Protein backbone atom coordinates (compact mmCIF):
# COMPACT_ATOMS: atom_id res chain seq x y z
CA UNK A 1 0.00 0.00 0.00
CA UNK A 2 1.35 3.37 -0.90
CA UNK A 3 0.49 6.69 0.71
CA UNK A 4 -2.38 8.58 -0.90
CA UNK A 5 -3.72 12.12 -0.71
CA UNK A 6 -0.17 13.40 -0.64
CA UNK A 7 -1.21 16.82 -1.97
CA UNK A 8 -3.96 17.14 0.62
CA UNK A 9 -1.55 16.20 3.42
CA UNK A 10 0.89 18.83 2.18
CA UNK A 11 -1.88 21.42 2.10
CA UNK A 12 -2.81 20.70 5.71
CA UNK A 13 0.82 21.11 6.78
CA UNK A 14 1.04 24.38 4.88
CA UNK A 15 -2.14 25.57 6.59
CA UNK A 16 -0.64 24.73 9.99
CA UNK A 17 2.50 26.72 9.16
CA UNK A 18 0.48 29.71 8.00
CA UNK A 19 -1.49 29.72 11.22
CA UNK A 20 1.85 29.67 12.99
CA UNK A 21 2.96 32.66 10.92
CA UNK A 22 -0.19 34.55 11.89
CA UNK A 23 0.45 33.60 15.53
CA UNK A 24 3.93 35.12 15.25
CA UNK A 25 2.42 38.40 13.97
CA UNK A 26 0.15 38.40 17.02
CA UNK A 27 3.17 37.67 19.20
CA UNK A 28 4.93 40.74 17.81
CA UNK A 29 1.97 42.91 18.76
CA UNK A 30 1.98 41.38 22.24
CA UNK A 31 5.63 42.40 22.54
CA UNK A 32 4.69 45.94 21.44
CA UNK A 33 1.96 45.88 24.06
CA UNK A 34 4.43 45.01 26.79
CA UNK A 35 6.76 47.73 25.51
CA UNK A 36 3.99 50.32 25.57
CA UNK A 37 3.14 49.38 29.15
CA UNK A 38 6.83 49.71 30.05
CA UNK A 39 7.69 52.94 28.25
CA UNK A 40 4.52 54.47 26.76
CA UNK A 41 6.06 54.78 23.29
CA UNK A 42 3.25 56.29 21.17
CA UNK A 43 5.24 55.56 18.00
CA UNK A 44 4.31 51.90 18.45
CA UNK A 45 0.61 52.62 17.84
CA UNK A 46 0.60 53.05 14.03
CA UNK A 47 2.98 50.10 13.60
CA UNK A 48 0.71 47.90 15.69
CA UNK A 49 -2.39 49.08 13.81
CA UNK A 50 -0.80 48.11 10.50
CA UNK A 51 0.25 44.74 11.92
CA UNK A 52 -3.30 44.16 13.17
CA UNK A 53 -4.68 44.85 9.68
CA UNK A 54 -2.31 42.21 8.40
CA UNK A 55 -3.48 39.76 11.10
CA UNK A 56 -7.12 40.39 10.15
CA UNK A 57 -6.37 39.81 6.47
CA UNK A 58 -4.59 36.54 7.30
CA UNK A 59 -7.58 35.48 9.37
CA UNK A 60 -9.94 36.04 6.44
CA UNK A 61 -7.71 34.31 3.93
CA UNK A 62 -7.01 31.28 6.11
CA UNK A 63 -10.68 30.95 7.04
CA UNK A 64 -11.51 30.88 3.32
CA UNK A 65 -8.85 28.23 2.84
CA UNK A 66 -10.49 26.08 5.54
CA UNK A 67 -13.92 26.38 3.91
CA UNK A 68 -12.36 25.45 0.60
CA UNK A 69 -10.71 22.34 2.09
CA UNK A 70 -13.96 21.31 3.78
CA UNK A 71 -15.88 21.67 0.52
CA UNK A 72 -13.27 19.98 -1.63
CA UNK A 73 -11.93 17.19 0.56
CA UNK A 74 -14.85 16.25 2.86
CA UNK A 75 -12.31 15.52 5.61
CA UNK A 76 -13.04 13.08 8.45
CA UNK A 77 -11.40 11.98 11.71
CA UNK A 78 -8.13 13.80 12.54
CA UNK A 79 -8.29 15.81 9.29
CA UNK A 80 -11.72 17.15 10.20
CA UNK A 81 -10.64 17.92 13.77
CA UNK A 82 -7.60 19.71 12.43
CA UNK A 83 -9.48 22.00 10.04
CA UNK A 84 -12.17 22.79 12.60
CA UNK A 85 -9.42 23.48 15.16
CA UNK A 86 -7.70 25.84 12.74
CA UNK A 87 -10.95 27.77 12.30
CA UNK A 88 -11.33 28.11 16.05
CA UNK A 89 -7.69 28.94 16.73
CA UNK A 90 -7.81 31.61 14.00
CA UNK A 91 -10.60 33.44 15.77
CA UNK A 92 -8.79 33.14 19.12
CA UNK A 93 -5.65 34.64 17.58
CA UNK A 94 -7.66 37.43 16.03
CA UNK A 95 -9.23 38.22 19.41
CA UNK A 96 -5.86 38.20 21.17
CA UNK A 97 -4.56 40.61 18.52
CA UNK A 98 -7.50 42.97 19.10
CA UNK A 99 -7.01 42.91 22.87
CA UNK A 100 -3.29 43.63 22.53
CA UNK A 101 -4.14 46.56 20.30
CA UNK A 102 -6.58 47.85 22.90
CA UNK A 103 -3.73 48.08 25.42
CA UNK A 104 -1.34 49.57 22.85
CA UNK A 105 -3.84 52.34 22.11
CA UNK A 106 -3.53 53.38 25.76
CA UNK A 107 0.05 54.57 25.05
CA UNK A 108 -0.85 58.30 25.35
CA UNK A 109 -2.14 57.54 28.87
CA UNK A 110 1.04 55.81 29.97
CA UNK A 111 1.95 58.49 32.46
CA UNK A 112 -1.43 58.21 34.07
CA UNK A 113 -1.26 54.40 34.31
CA UNK A 114 2.27 54.56 35.75
CA UNK A 115 1.31 57.19 38.29
CA UNK A 116 0.06 54.64 40.78
CA UNK A 117 2.94 52.18 41.45
CA UNK A 118 0.91 49.36 43.12
CA UNK A 119 -1.51 48.93 40.18
CA UNK A 120 1.17 49.65 37.58
CA UNK A 121 3.35 46.83 38.98
CA UNK A 122 0.43 44.40 38.85
CA UNK A 123 -0.31 45.36 35.24
CA UNK A 124 3.29 44.75 34.20
CA UNK A 125 3.35 41.38 35.96
CA UNK A 126 0.07 40.44 34.25
CA UNK A 127 1.52 41.44 30.89
CA UNK A 128 4.63 39.31 31.48
CA UNK A 129 2.50 36.36 32.45
CA UNK A 130 0.07 36.52 29.52
CA UNK A 131 2.91 36.91 27.04
CA UNK A 132 4.56 33.80 28.53
CA UNK A 133 1.28 31.96 28.39
CA UNK A 134 0.68 32.98 24.82
CA UNK A 135 4.17 31.79 23.88
CA UNK A 136 3.40 28.42 25.41
CA UNK A 137 0.33 28.29 23.18
CA UNK A 138 2.41 29.22 20.14
CA UNK A 139 4.98 26.55 20.99
CA UNK A 140 2.27 23.94 21.54
CA UNK A 141 0.77 24.73 18.15
CA UNK A 142 4.13 24.61 16.41
CA UNK A 143 5.07 21.24 17.90
CA UNK A 144 1.54 19.84 18.40
CA UNK A 145 2.65 19.06 21.94
CA UNK A 146 -0.11 17.44 24.01
CA UNK A 147 1.63 18.00 27.36
CA UNK A 148 1.94 21.75 26.81
CA UNK A 149 -1.61 21.95 25.44
CA UNK A 150 -2.97 20.11 28.48
CA UNK A 151 -1.11 22.41 30.85
CA UNK A 152 -2.47 25.46 29.02
CA UNK A 153 -6.01 24.11 29.05
CA UNK A 154 -6.09 24.56 32.82
CA UNK A 155 -6.82 28.23 33.55
CA UNK A 156 -4.00 30.00 35.42
CA UNK A 157 -5.09 30.71 38.98
CA UNK A 158 -2.39 33.37 39.33
CA UNK A 159 -4.09 35.52 36.67
CA UNK A 160 -7.26 35.56 38.76
CA UNK A 161 -5.23 36.55 41.81
CA UNK A 162 -3.56 39.42 39.92
CA UNK A 163 -6.91 40.58 38.57
CA UNK A 164 -8.58 40.52 41.98
CA UNK A 165 -5.66 42.40 43.56
CA UNK A 166 -5.77 44.97 40.76
CA UNK A 167 -9.47 45.63 41.37
CA UNK A 168 -8.92 45.87 45.12
CA UNK A 169 -6.09 48.38 44.64
CA UNK A 170 -8.16 50.46 42.21
CA UNK A 171 -11.05 50.66 44.65
CA UNK A 172 -8.67 52.10 47.24
CA UNK A 173 -7.58 55.02 45.02
CA UNK A 174 -8.27 58.57 46.17
CA UNK A 175 -7.44 62.02 44.84
CA UNK A 176 -8.44 64.13 41.84
CA UNK A 177 -7.06 61.69 39.20
CA UNK A 178 -8.40 58.55 40.89
CA UNK A 179 -11.28 57.97 38.48
CA UNK A 180 -9.14 58.44 35.35
CA UNK A 181 -6.38 56.18 36.68
CA UNK A 182 -8.94 53.54 37.64
CA UNK A 183 -10.76 53.56 34.31
CA UNK A 184 -7.58 53.42 32.22
CA UNK A 185 -5.86 50.81 34.37
CA UNK A 186 -9.00 48.71 34.48
CA UNK A 187 -9.27 48.78 30.68
CA UNK A 188 -5.68 47.50 30.39
CA UNK A 189 -6.10 44.91 33.16
CA UNK A 190 -9.32 43.59 31.67
CA UNK A 191 -7.70 43.18 28.24
CA UNK A 192 -4.72 41.33 29.74
CA UNK A 193 -6.97 39.01 31.67
CA UNK A 194 -8.92 38.24 28.48
CA UNK A 195 -5.72 37.48 26.56
CA UNK A 196 -4.85 34.92 29.22
CA UNK A 197 -8.28 33.33 28.76
CA UNK A 198 -7.89 33.11 25.00
CA UNK A 199 -4.51 31.38 25.42
CA UNK A 200 -6.27 28.86 27.68
CA UNK A 201 -8.89 28.27 24.99
CA UNK A 202 -6.16 27.65 22.39
CA UNK A 203 -4.66 25.04 24.73
CA UNK A 204 -8.04 23.34 25.18
CA UNK A 205 -8.72 23.30 21.42
CA UNK A 206 -5.30 21.92 20.70
CA UNK A 207 -5.80 19.22 23.31
CA UNK A 208 -9.05 18.12 21.63
CA UNK A 209 -7.38 18.20 18.23
CA UNK A 210 -4.68 15.86 19.49
CA UNK A 211 -6.84 13.44 21.48
CA UNK A 212 -10.28 13.55 19.84
CA UNK A 213 -11.63 12.72 23.29
CA UNK A 214 -15.30 13.83 23.57
CA UNK A 215 -14.63 14.91 27.20
CA UNK A 216 -11.98 17.29 25.90
CA UNK A 217 -14.47 18.70 23.42
CA UNK A 218 -16.92 19.31 26.25
CA UNK A 219 -14.19 21.02 28.28
CA UNK A 220 -13.30 23.14 25.26
CA UNK A 221 -16.82 24.35 24.62
CA UNK A 222 -17.55 25.08 28.26
Amino acid at each position, binding site marked *: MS*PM*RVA*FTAELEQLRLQVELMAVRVDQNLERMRDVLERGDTGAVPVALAADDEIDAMNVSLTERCYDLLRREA*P*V*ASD*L*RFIVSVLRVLSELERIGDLALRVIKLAPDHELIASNPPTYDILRSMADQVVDRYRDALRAWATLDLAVATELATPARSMDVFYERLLAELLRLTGPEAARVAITTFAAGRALERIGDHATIIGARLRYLLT*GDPDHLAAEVR
Partner: protein
Amino acid sequence: MEEGHDVTQTETELKDVPDVDLTVDVTPTVEATSADDNYPVVFDVKDLSVFYGSFRAVRDVALPIRKHEVTAFIGPSGCGKTTVLRCFNRMNDLIDTARVEGTITYHGVDLYDPRVNPVEVRRRIGMVFQKPNPFPKSIYDNVAYGPRIGGDKGDLDEIVEGALRRSALWDEVKDRLKKSALGLSGGQQQRLCIARAIAVNPEVILMDEPCSALDPIATGRIEDLMSEIKQEYTIVIVTHNMQQAARISDRCAFFTTEVNETSDVRTGVLVEVDRTEKMFSNPTDDRTENYVTGRFG
Protein backbone atom coordinates in the same frame (compact mmCIF):
# COMPACT_ATOMS: atom_id res chain seq x y z
CA MET B 1 -23.64 -15.52 -12.03
CA GLU B 2 -27.36 -14.84 -11.63
CA GLU B 3 -27.32 -15.09 -7.89
CA GLY B 4 -31.04 -14.49 -7.39
CA HIS B 5 -31.92 -17.62 -9.37
CA ASP B 6 -29.29 -19.73 -7.65
CA VAL B 7 -30.77 -18.91 -4.29
CA THR B 8 -34.22 -20.17 -5.18
CA GLN B 9 -32.88 -23.34 -6.75
CA THR B 10 -30.89 -24.17 -3.67
CA GLU B 11 -33.79 -23.31 -1.43
CA THR B 12 -35.81 -25.96 -3.20
CA GLU B 13 -33.08 -28.56 -2.68
CA LEU B 14 -32.68 -27.69 0.98
CA LYS B 15 -36.37 -27.70 1.79
CA ASP B 16 -36.36 -31.09 3.47
CA VAL B 17 -33.57 -30.25 5.92
CA PRO B 18 -34.91 -30.66 9.47
CA ASP B 19 -35.88 -27.40 11.07
CA VAL B 20 -34.65 -25.84 14.26
CA ASP B 21 -36.98 -23.40 15.89
CA LEU B 22 -35.89 -20.00 14.66
CA THR B 23 -38.98 -18.44 16.17
CA VAL B 24 -37.53 -16.40 18.95
CA ASP B 25 -38.76 -13.22 20.52
CA VAL B 26 -36.73 -10.06 20.33
CA THR B 27 -35.59 -9.86 23.92
CA PRO B 28 -31.84 -9.25 24.07
CA THR B 29 -29.72 -12.38 24.20
CA VAL B 30 -26.62 -10.36 25.03
CA GLU B 31 -26.63 -7.68 27.68
CA ALA B 32 -26.23 -4.13 26.46
CA THR B 33 -22.67 -3.05 27.17
CA SER B 34 -23.10 0.73 27.27
CA ALA B 35 -25.72 3.45 27.06
CA ASP B 36 -25.22 3.56 23.30
CA ASP B 37 -25.75 -0.15 22.91
CA ASN B 38 -29.36 -0.41 23.95
CA TYR B 39 -30.68 -2.34 20.99
CA PRO B 40 -30.79 -6.11 21.32
CA VAL B 41 -28.20 -8.15 19.50
CA VAL B 42 -29.60 -9.93 16.44
CA PHE B 43 -26.41 -11.61 15.28
CA ASP B 44 -23.46 -12.33 17.46
CA VAL B 45 -20.32 -13.29 15.55
CA LYS B 46 -17.46 -15.01 17.40
CA ASP B 47 -14.07 -16.13 16.04
CA LEU B 48 -15.43 -16.34 12.52
CA SER B 49 -13.11 -17.56 9.76
CA VAL B 50 -14.21 -18.35 6.22
CA PHE B 51 -12.25 -20.66 3.95
CA TYR B 52 -12.45 -21.26 0.23
CA GLY B 53 -10.82 -24.68 0.03
CA SER B 54 -7.57 -24.35 1.99
CA PHE B 55 -7.44 -20.58 1.49
CA ARG B 56 -8.54 -18.63 4.53
CA ALA B 57 -10.27 -15.55 3.10
CA VAL B 58 -11.09 -13.89 6.41
CA ARG B 59 -10.20 -14.69 10.00
CA ASP B 60 -11.11 -14.04 13.62
CA VAL B 61 -14.11 -11.81 13.06
CA ALA B 62 -16.10 -10.92 16.16
CA LEU B 63 -18.89 -8.37 16.19
CA PRO B 64 -22.52 -7.88 17.18
CA ILE B 65 -25.26 -6.77 14.79
CA ARG B 66 -27.96 -4.88 16.63
CA LYS B 67 -31.66 -4.63 15.92
CA HIS B 68 -32.97 -1.50 14.16
CA GLU B 69 -29.47 -0.38 13.38
CA VAL B 70 -27.75 0.03 10.06
CA THR B 71 -24.36 -1.63 10.30
CA ALA B 72 -21.93 -0.77 7.51
CA PHE B 73 -18.95 -2.89 6.49
CA ILE B 74 -16.18 -0.80 4.98
CA GLY B 75 -12.67 -1.62 3.81
CA PRO B 76 -10.52 -2.03 0.71
CA SER B 77 -11.36 -4.53 -2.01
CA GLY B 78 -10.64 -8.13 -1.10
CA CYS B 79 -10.77 -7.61 2.66
CA GLY B 80 -13.65 -10.04 3.19
CA LYS B 81 -16.60 -7.69 3.77
CA THR B 82 -18.87 -9.46 1.31
CA THR B 83 -17.65 -12.88 2.45
CA VAL B 84 -18.68 -12.06 6.02
CA LEU B 85 -21.98 -10.53 4.87
CA ARG B 86 -22.82 -13.72 2.99
CA CYS B 87 -22.36 -15.75 6.17
CA PHE B 88 -25.36 -14.05 7.75
CA ASN B 89 -27.87 -15.81 5.49
CA ARG B 90 -25.69 -18.80 4.68
CA MET B 91 -25.15 -17.73 1.10
CA ASN B 92 -21.69 -19.28 1.36
CA ASP B 93 -23.45 -22.67 1.49
CA LEU B 94 -23.99 -22.19 -2.22
CA ILE B 95 -20.25 -22.27 -2.88
CA ASP B 96 -19.00 -25.87 -2.75
CA THR B 97 -15.54 -25.11 -1.41
CA ALA B 98 -16.63 -22.53 1.17
CA ARG B 99 -16.33 -23.47 4.82
CA VAL B 100 -17.14 -21.48 7.93
CA GLU B 101 -15.39 -21.79 11.29
CA GLY B 102 -16.41 -20.06 14.51
CA THR B 103 -19.97 -19.18 15.42
CA ILE B 104 -22.71 -16.88 14.25
CA THR B 105 -25.73 -16.90 16.47
CA TYR B 106 -29.06 -15.43 15.43
CA HIS B 107 -31.03 -14.50 18.54
CA GLY B 108 -28.92 -17.03 20.37
CA VAL B 109 -29.52 -19.85 17.85
CA ASP B 110 -26.41 -21.17 16.08
CA LEU B 111 -27.05 -20.28 12.45
CA TYR B 112 -24.80 -23.10 11.22
CA ASP B 113 -26.39 -25.80 13.33
CA PRO B 114 -27.06 -28.64 10.84
CA ARG B 115 -30.67 -28.72 11.98
CA VAL B 116 -31.23 -25.10 10.94
CA ASN B 117 -33.20 -24.82 7.72
CA PRO B 118 -31.38 -22.48 5.31
CA VAL B 119 -34.66 -21.66 3.57
CA GLU B 120 -36.07 -20.29 6.79
CA VAL B 121 -32.80 -18.45 7.34
CA ARG B 122 -33.10 -16.73 3.97
CA ARG B 123 -36.73 -15.87 4.55
CA ARG B 124 -35.83 -14.07 7.73
CA ILE B 125 -32.63 -12.63 6.39
CA GLY B 126 -33.10 -11.11 2.95
CA MET B 127 -30.45 -9.90 0.58
CA VAL B 128 -30.08 -7.12 -1.97
CA PHE B 129 -27.20 -7.30 -4.44
CA GLN B 130 -24.85 -4.86 -6.09
CA LYS B 131 -26.57 -5.05 -9.47
CA PRO B 132 -30.36 -4.98 -9.37
CA ASN B 133 -31.48 -8.48 -10.32
CA PRO B 134 -35.23 -8.41 -10.93
CA PHE B 135 -36.69 -11.59 -12.40
CA PRO B 136 -37.78 -11.29 -16.05
CA LYS B 137 -41.38 -11.12 -14.88
CA SER B 138 -43.89 -8.40 -14.14
CA ILE B 139 -43.34 -5.92 -11.33
CA TYR B 140 -46.17 -7.57 -9.42
CA ASP B 141 -44.82 -11.08 -9.87
CA ASN B 142 -41.37 -10.03 -8.72
CA VAL B 143 -42.73 -8.88 -5.38
CA ALA B 144 -45.27 -11.73 -5.10
CA TYR B 145 -42.62 -14.35 -5.87
CA GLY B 146 -41.35 -14.89 -2.34
CA PRO B 147 -44.77 -14.93 -0.64
CA ARG B 148 -46.05 -17.40 -3.29
CA ILE B 149 -43.23 -19.95 -2.95
CA GLY B 150 -43.31 -19.46 0.80
CA GLY B 151 -46.99 -20.40 0.77
CA ASP B 152 -48.07 -17.10 2.32
CA LYS B 153 -51.84 -17.32 2.85
CA GLY B 154 -52.40 -13.56 3.10
CA ASP B 155 -53.94 -11.33 0.44
CA LEU B 156 -51.21 -11.15 -2.23
CA ASP B 157 -52.38 -7.78 -3.60
CA GLU B 158 -52.14 -6.34 -0.15
CA ILE B 159 -48.69 -7.82 0.45
CA VAL B 160 -47.40 -6.51 -2.89
CA GLU B 161 -48.79 -3.02 -2.33
CA GLY B 162 -47.42 -2.90 1.22
CA ALA B 163 -43.95 -3.97 0.12
CA LEU B 164 -43.90 -1.49 -2.76
CA ARG B 165 -45.08 1.30 -0.49
CA ARG B 166 -42.43 0.55 2.12
CA SER B 167 -39.76 0.57 -0.56
CA ALA B 168 -41.00 3.96 -1.80
CA LEU B 169 -41.82 2.61 -5.26
CA TRP B 170 -45.62 2.32 -5.17
CA ASP B 171 -46.47 5.73 -6.60
CA GLU B 172 -44.12 5.20 -9.51
CA VAL B 173 -45.36 1.73 -10.50
CA LYS B 174 -48.94 1.37 -9.27
CA ASP B 175 -50.32 1.92 -12.81
CA ARG B 176 -48.06 -0.61 -14.48
CA LEU B 177 -47.81 -3.52 -12.07
CA LYS B 178 -48.30 -6.06 -14.84
CA LYS B 179 -45.50 -4.57 -16.97
CA SER B 180 -42.06 -6.14 -17.05
CA ALA B 181 -39.75 -5.22 -14.20
CA LEU B 182 -36.93 -4.97 -16.73
CA GLY B 183 -38.51 -1.76 -18.07
CA LEU B 184 -37.76 0.06 -14.81
CA SER B 185 -34.73 2.31 -14.33
CA GLY B 186 -31.73 0.95 -12.41
CA GLY B 187 -32.71 2.81 -9.24
CA GLN B 188 -36.33 1.62 -9.52
CA GLN B 189 -35.13 -1.95 -10.12
CA GLN B 190 -33.02 -1.76 -6.96
CA ARG B 191 -35.99 -0.51 -4.94
CA LEU B 192 -38.03 -3.33 -6.49
CA CYS B 193 -35.39 -5.79 -5.22
CA ILE B 194 -35.75 -4.23 -1.78
CA ALA B 195 -39.56 -4.59 -2.09
CA ARG B 196 -39.05 -8.24 -3.10
CA ALA B 197 -36.86 -8.79 -0.04
CA ILE B 198 -39.37 -7.03 2.23
CA ALA B 199 -42.39 -8.93 0.85
CA VAL B 200 -41.53 -12.11 2.78
CA ASN B 201 -41.40 -10.04 5.96
CA PRO B 202 -37.78 -10.62 6.93
CA GLU B 203 -36.17 -9.31 10.08
CA VAL B 204 -32.81 -8.50 8.53
CA ILE B 205 -31.86 -7.12 5.12
CA LEU B 206 -28.31 -7.65 3.90
CA MET B 207 -27.16 -5.24 1.20
CA ASP B 208 -24.04 -5.80 -0.85
CA GLU B 209 -23.04 -2.44 -2.34
CA PRO B 210 -26.66 -1.71 -3.28
CA CYS B 211 -25.93 1.71 -4.77
CA SER B 212 -22.71 1.11 -6.65
CA ALA B 213 -24.51 0.74 -9.99
CA LEU B 214 -26.81 3.71 -9.40
CA ASP B 215 -26.60 7.44 -10.16
CA PRO B 216 -26.49 9.96 -7.27
CA ILE B 217 -30.25 10.67 -7.34
CA ALA B 218 -31.17 6.98 -7.23
CA THR B 219 -28.52 6.49 -4.53
CA GLY B 220 -30.10 9.28 -2.48
CA ARG B 221 -33.51 7.57 -2.74
CA ILE B 222 -32.12 4.23 -1.56
CA GLU B 223 -30.35 5.96 1.33
CA ASP B 224 -33.57 7.72 2.36
CA LEU B 225 -35.36 4.40 2.12
CA MET B 226 -32.80 2.72 4.35
CA SER B 227 -33.18 5.27 7.10
CA GLU B 228 -36.97 4.87 6.91
CA ILE B 229 -37.09 1.08 6.96
CA LYS B 230 -34.54 0.62 9.71
CA GLN B 231 -37.40 1.31 12.13
CA GLU B 232 -38.77 -2.07 11.07
CA TYR B 233 -35.72 -4.00 9.93
CA THR B 234 -32.12 -4.55 10.79
CA ILE B 235 -29.78 -3.66 7.95
CA VAL B 236 -26.23 -4.75 7.23
CA ILE B 237 -24.63 -3.04 4.25
CA VAL B 238 -21.33 -3.44 2.46
CA THR B 239 -20.28 -0.19 0.85
CA HIS B 240 -17.21 1.24 -0.82
CA ASN B 241 -18.60 4.72 -0.44
CA MET B 242 -17.32 6.01 2.89
CA GLN B 243 -19.48 9.11 2.77
CA GLN B 244 -22.45 6.78 2.42
CA ALA B 245 -21.33 4.74 5.42
CA ALA B 246 -20.90 7.95 7.42
CA ARG B 247 -24.35 9.20 6.38
CA ILE B 248 -26.53 6.16 6.80
CA SER B 249 -24.99 3.74 9.26
CA ASP B 250 -25.27 3.69 13.03
CA ARG B 251 -22.39 1.30 13.47
CA CYS B 252 -19.45 0.68 11.27
CA ALA B 253 -17.03 -2.23 10.93
CA PHE B 254 -13.69 -1.68 9.20
CA PHE B 255 -12.02 -4.66 7.56
CA THR B 256 -8.62 -4.72 5.96
CA THR B 257 -6.25 -7.17 4.33
CA GLU B 258 -3.20 -8.60 6.06
CA VAL B 259 -0.45 -9.86 3.81
CA ASN B 260 1.75 -12.72 5.00
CA GLU B 261 5.31 -11.56 4.23
CA THR B 262 6.67 -15.01 3.40
CA SER B 263 3.77 -16.63 1.57
CA ASP B 264 2.22 -13.41 0.16
CA VAL B 265 -1.19 -14.82 1.16
CA ARG B 266 -3.80 -12.16 1.85
CA THR B 267 -6.33 -12.61 4.63
CA GLY B 268 -9.19 -10.32 5.56
CA VAL B 269 -9.36 -9.16 9.18
CA LEU B 270 -11.77 -7.04 11.16
CA VAL B 271 -9.81 -4.07 12.49
CA GLU B 272 -12.40 -2.14 14.44
CA VAL B 273 -16.13 -1.91 14.98
CA ASP B 274 -17.74 1.03 16.73
CA ARG B 275 -20.40 3.69 16.54
CA THR B 276 -20.16 5.35 13.13
CA GLU B 277 -19.68 8.81 14.59
CA LYS B 278 -16.68 7.51 16.53
CA MET B 279 -15.24 5.71 13.50
CA PHE B 280 -15.36 8.90 11.45
CA SER B 281 -14.34 11.34 14.16
CA ASN B 282 -11.80 9.56 16.28
CA PRO B 283 -11.22 5.90 15.43
CA THR B 284 -9.19 3.86 17.89
CA ASP B 285 -6.98 2.04 15.41
CA ASP B 286 -4.47 3.89 13.21
CA ARG B 287 -5.34 1.63 10.27
CA THR B 288 -8.96 2.83 10.46
CA GLU B 289 -7.82 6.45 10.67
CA ASN B 290 -5.61 5.97 7.61
CA TYR B 291 -8.42 4.35 5.68
CA VAL B 292 -11.26 6.78 6.49
CA THR B 293 -9.04 9.79 5.83
CA GLY B 294 -8.03 8.23 2.52
CA ARG B 295 -4.33 7.98 3.41
CA PHE B 296 -4.05 4.25 2.72
CA GLY B 297 -6.23 1.69 1.15
